[in-house]
């Protein structure tokens, strides 16, 4: 099915995402910070990116902006993980170019639903 890049500095979070998506037939690539995420996105051209916002080296917002600058990655669905329900964070991320968001904590079904919503074959 889809190849999804998950960018988060929390290994347990990446693990959770992997364990949710892989059984559904998706393949998952991991990155531990924004810079890694950018590199892997350029190299592997995933079908979707799920990223945290607070990360060292390069945070999620900068990652989203950087990804949007890549001509080869236009239209790439980028979803960010947020514990906030505040509009501020969402606005910021949306203006940076994010497609959508998932609130933490999430239930696996939600994650799969968002993936299903944004990744169509």
């Amino acid at each position, binding site marked *: 099915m889809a190849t999804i890049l998950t960018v988060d500095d929390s290994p347990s*979070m990446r693990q959770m995402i992997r364990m949710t998506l892989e059984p559904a037939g998706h393949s998952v690539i991991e990155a531990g910070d924004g810079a890694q995420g950018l590199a892997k996105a350029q190299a592997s051209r995933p079908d979707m990116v799920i990223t945290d916002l607070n*990360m060292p080296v390069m945070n999620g917002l900068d990652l989203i902006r950087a990804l949007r600058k890549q001509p080869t990655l236009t239209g790439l669905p980028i979803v960010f993980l947020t514990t906030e329900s505040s509009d501020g964070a969402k*606005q*910021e991320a949306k203006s940076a170019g994010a497609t*959508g968001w998932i609130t933490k904590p999430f239930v696996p079904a939600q994650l799969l639903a968002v993936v299903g919503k944004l990744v169509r074959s």
Partner: protein
Amino acid sequence: MSFADATAVFRQEASELLEVLEGTLLDLGLRPHDKDLVDTAFRALHTIKGSGAMFGFDKVAAFTHEFETAFDRVRKGEIVPTQELIAVALAAKDYIRALIETPDETDTIIGDAILGDLTQFVAPRAATAEPTATATVAAPMQANRPAGWKLYLEFEQHVLRNGSNPLDLLEDLCKLGPCFAVPLTDAIPLLDEIEPEDCYLKWDVTLHCDCDRSAIDDVFMFVCDEMKLRMTPLTQTDVAPQVVSLGQDMVVQNALIQDVDVQDEPAVTVVVEAPAIVPEQGPVAPSPVAATPAELATPAAAKVRREEPKRSDERAVATVRVQAERLDELMDRVGELVIAQARLSQLAATSADLSIKMIAEEIERLAGSLRDTTMGARMVPIGSLFGRFRRLVHDLSRDLGKPVEFVTSGEDTELDKTMIECLADPLVHLIRNAIDHGIEDTAARTAAGKTESGRIELQAVHSGAQVLVTVRDNGGGLNTARIRAKAEEQGLIAPGATLSDSDIHQFLFHPGFSTAQTISALSGRGVGMDVVKRTIENMRGSIDLSTRPGQGTTVTLRLPLTLAIIEGLLIRVGEGRYIIPLSAVEECVELTPEDQRSRGRSFLNVRGSLVPFLRLRELLHVNAAADPHQKTIIISTGECRVGLVADQIIGSHQTVIKSLSKLHSDVTIFSGATILGDGTAALILDVAQLVALAQAKAEKQMNEAA
């Protein structure tokens, strides 16, 4: 990987975050105005909360949430953290740890009490935002749902660039019920002005569904800011659907619709047939979990690497997590490789084949390099251990009412990782003793003219082939008289016996021995020092006490750098071969003829200085005739030099240390064994023991001569 494994990752992560939190809180106690510290603490809490909820640690998430809320005033800079506040925060951190590690045994009453205390110190606190039921705004349920909706959809031009696809959204709409979408093409520019990645189409949609606003909002939740959405409810009397199906091939993406004349009025009716399924609520149901109160997005978290001893300066050192067992396995393989390589070298030495010799040399070089690198991978700075003790000292000092300054140095000193863990308990014990028994209470200190605050110094330093870890206090020192009295009381010394002070101090290591007047909750049960000594000795280390009455006590732990591989000097005594750790070897000299002849002498003359010596033949019960030219190997443990007399020095031998089994634990002159190139086992001489023996012998002889 199973869920259990993922939870283990969470626990590991949480454990590290809690450590960061503790250190940060302690630092905050020293620098209450440091905003960065508060932010760091908050980030740690935040991550624990989020991950905790993910892995089912609901109590952790809930408590951390409350804690965050209560601590919020500190974060906003409205109040400055006091020592009491820090203490409560530390208690909260412990509670969180308990909730993660032993959830069944942890009573929520503790958590409530902590929050209560916290409120007191922080009152009046910011009103906790009531956890809202859903993450998104729930639309008011309409008493009578409409039969459907009429929608007008207009997207921002760039909506496609951000990964959203209006066609997909239309499809999602249709999952709610039969719907008709009519594209409005009036905004499509001329061909040469068209940006292929922009969206120029709008839609009028008629959706027949028994759903309310929120279902539709859900479909567009991600793009609601990038579109105009107008909804009007349909009544029952609206036009029934006419189903005309069209292929899905209409690619709107690059707006090059062959069939549409861009100048014309929109004429194409696109009907997307709704699948015959029950309309779902919407593809993304918001999670009914307590949402966090409104918080500003936290700045980029500075992740503290596991090995990093200093929290305040973050260095981006690339690290990789490796499971400890894998490192151990790696070490074992490297060890076996080293042994095999030694055999190869031995064979090659006797071979006439030059190319084999060269390869053997190359392999020797590579194996050595691999060994060094692998050993390096196992080395961990001792600072990771020191960090824990700050909390210990803080708590003890508070519990006992004795102000104590805690100073550490040598955090960067590296030790084999297996040793670090074994050191933790002994050091805890020594520090406890130092504070409990060593440091006097404030009254006694001021009376003695000392500073009110006691001082504990924890230091680690490399010394030759060893690491020296010292715990030094400036308390009252060991009370030799009382130790002696206690020893006599326990029947360990005969009343009149003459013993040196240091001999008397050794009784502290006797099981069950304690001179504490009162047994405090912390120490004094006498279950400590003997275990400490045994643990250190199991690591092939040694423990020393030195004290100055009224001024303080220093406990010195000497530990080998690594338990795994050493460079050794292979010697022969009689028929047997033995290894002396090369790092302890200072030099090798030939025995002078006079030294050879002397039987009763205990000192060698080495370039003018007298060095006590041992004849290994005697020590190792070798009966056969001695070789004519005996060799002396001068070894040292840093302060003392001793000569060991052997029959032959064979050469150097790098080797994997194998421990001797328990059945030989009584033979203290050997610290371990190794396997030589020919497959036989050779024993490794314990340098510290030999030095002690030689000194004792020399002293005895001197006393007898006197």
